[in-house]
């Protein structure tokens, strides 16, 4: 255990400072190239640059390579390659508007390194009840897991700071769960995700200086999914991700199909005169987590963000309880 402390500290420092240092020049570069979009939730005409994916993937790759220097295990390679493929897919979507099916289908490719490197265990562990061996079914689970986690994080990236803040809470909850399960190596491998998100949150929090874009959100989500698989904590990871899963579930159950946000005509949320967010009564608009939070009355963007964070902390606690329940087996 003691020999793991130095790699853990070094990788966390590298993860945090890579993103912290590379994001400001990235912001300037994107500003020069005029790669900015309007922040729809601001009263004034505020333009915010995107995507922040390049600094996020830089933080992930450098920190995971540092860890690979300490322990040469395929799990680290699987996480790096999966995250990088997700970044490329997201970057393509950032630069060129693709159809609603592009990301879920393309992200299947991102899950293949986990299969080819054999960094999975087909025993699915459930809290209290034990494990079930599902070799063929588990391959399907891997193929579905990365697109689901990637798109789920992408779908919650709707307000300033929410995607990165959400990822901080969810990934640290997952790391704690991995420590509880005494899966120390994967727990340490998972820590950079939280520190990358933490550093990016500095620039993404309200008022955002940069948006992660599809490349950033998909990278964070795909890495989270990859950690869940290589760490054999799929169920715990799903529990920590529940608020984002609810968001996707509400969206899909109201729209009845996979569709890009930009293709939806009805608006789920509108602004009051003082520019607070307010749920609309538009029947054609999707039901989303933000819309449900706003159902009881208008709130500021910051208040909605904090409401999402509270839900994420709650699901993080449930995930940690789930980890303790697995220890009981």
């Amino acid at each position: 255990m003691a020999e793991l402390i130095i790699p853990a500290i070094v990788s966390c420092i590298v993860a945090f400072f890579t993103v912290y240092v590379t994001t400001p020049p990235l912001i300037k570069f994107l500003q020069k190239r005029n790669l900015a979009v309007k922040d729809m939730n601001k009263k004034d005409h505020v333009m915010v640059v995107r995507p922040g994916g390049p600094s996020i993937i830089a933080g992930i790759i450098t920190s995971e390579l540092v860890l690979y220097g300490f322990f040469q295990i395929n799990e680290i390679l699987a996480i790096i390659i999966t995250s990088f493929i997700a970044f490329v897919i997201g970057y393509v979507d950032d630069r060129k508007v693709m159809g609603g099916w592009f990301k879920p289908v393309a992200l299947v490719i991102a899950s293949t390194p986990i299969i080819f490197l054999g960094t999975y265990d087909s025993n699915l562990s459930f809290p209290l009840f034990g494990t079930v061996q599902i070799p063929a079914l588990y391959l399907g689970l891997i193929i579905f897991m990365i697109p689901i986690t990637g798109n789920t994080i992408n779908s919650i990236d709707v307000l300033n700071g929410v995607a990165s803040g959400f990822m901080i809470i969810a990934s640290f909850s997952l790391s704690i769960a991995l420590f509880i399960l005494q899966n120390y190596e994967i727990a340490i491998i998972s820590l950079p995700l939280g520190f990358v998100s933490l550093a990016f949150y500095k620039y993404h929090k309200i008022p955002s200086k940069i948006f992660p874009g599809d490349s950033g959100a998909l990278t964070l989500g795909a890495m989270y999914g990859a950690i869940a698989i290589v760490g054999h904590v799929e169920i715990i990871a799903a529990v920590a991700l529940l608020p984002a899963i609810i968001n996707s579930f509400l969206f899909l159950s109201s729209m009845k199909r996979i569709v890009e946000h930009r293709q939806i005509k009805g608006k789920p949320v509108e602004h009051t005169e003082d520019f607070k967010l307010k749920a609309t009564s538009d029947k054609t608009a999707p039901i989303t987590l933000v819309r449900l939070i706003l159902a009881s009355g208008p709130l500021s963007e910051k208040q909605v963000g904090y409401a999402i964070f509270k839900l994420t902390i709650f699901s993080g606690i449930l995930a940690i309880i789930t980890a303790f329940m697995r220890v009981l087996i």
Partner: protein
Amino acid sequence: MKIGLFGFLFVMWILILAGGGILVTILGPFSISGYGDFDLLLTSILKAIIAIILVIVWILILSKLKNWIFKKEIKF
């Protein structure tokens, strides 16, 4: 609103735990024999079908629960 969302989260968690119990107790010991080399393949296919059915049931229960928990909020 917020209590409703926390409640919905909690119910989802319980359903995940219960679903896990069903998977382990029903799917775990389940196996087909008497088909030689095809035993493993047939067992996997059947396990996959049962798992998919369970997921569909899980989604249907959640849909009903969503409408019940958020009946005041969802007037959209």
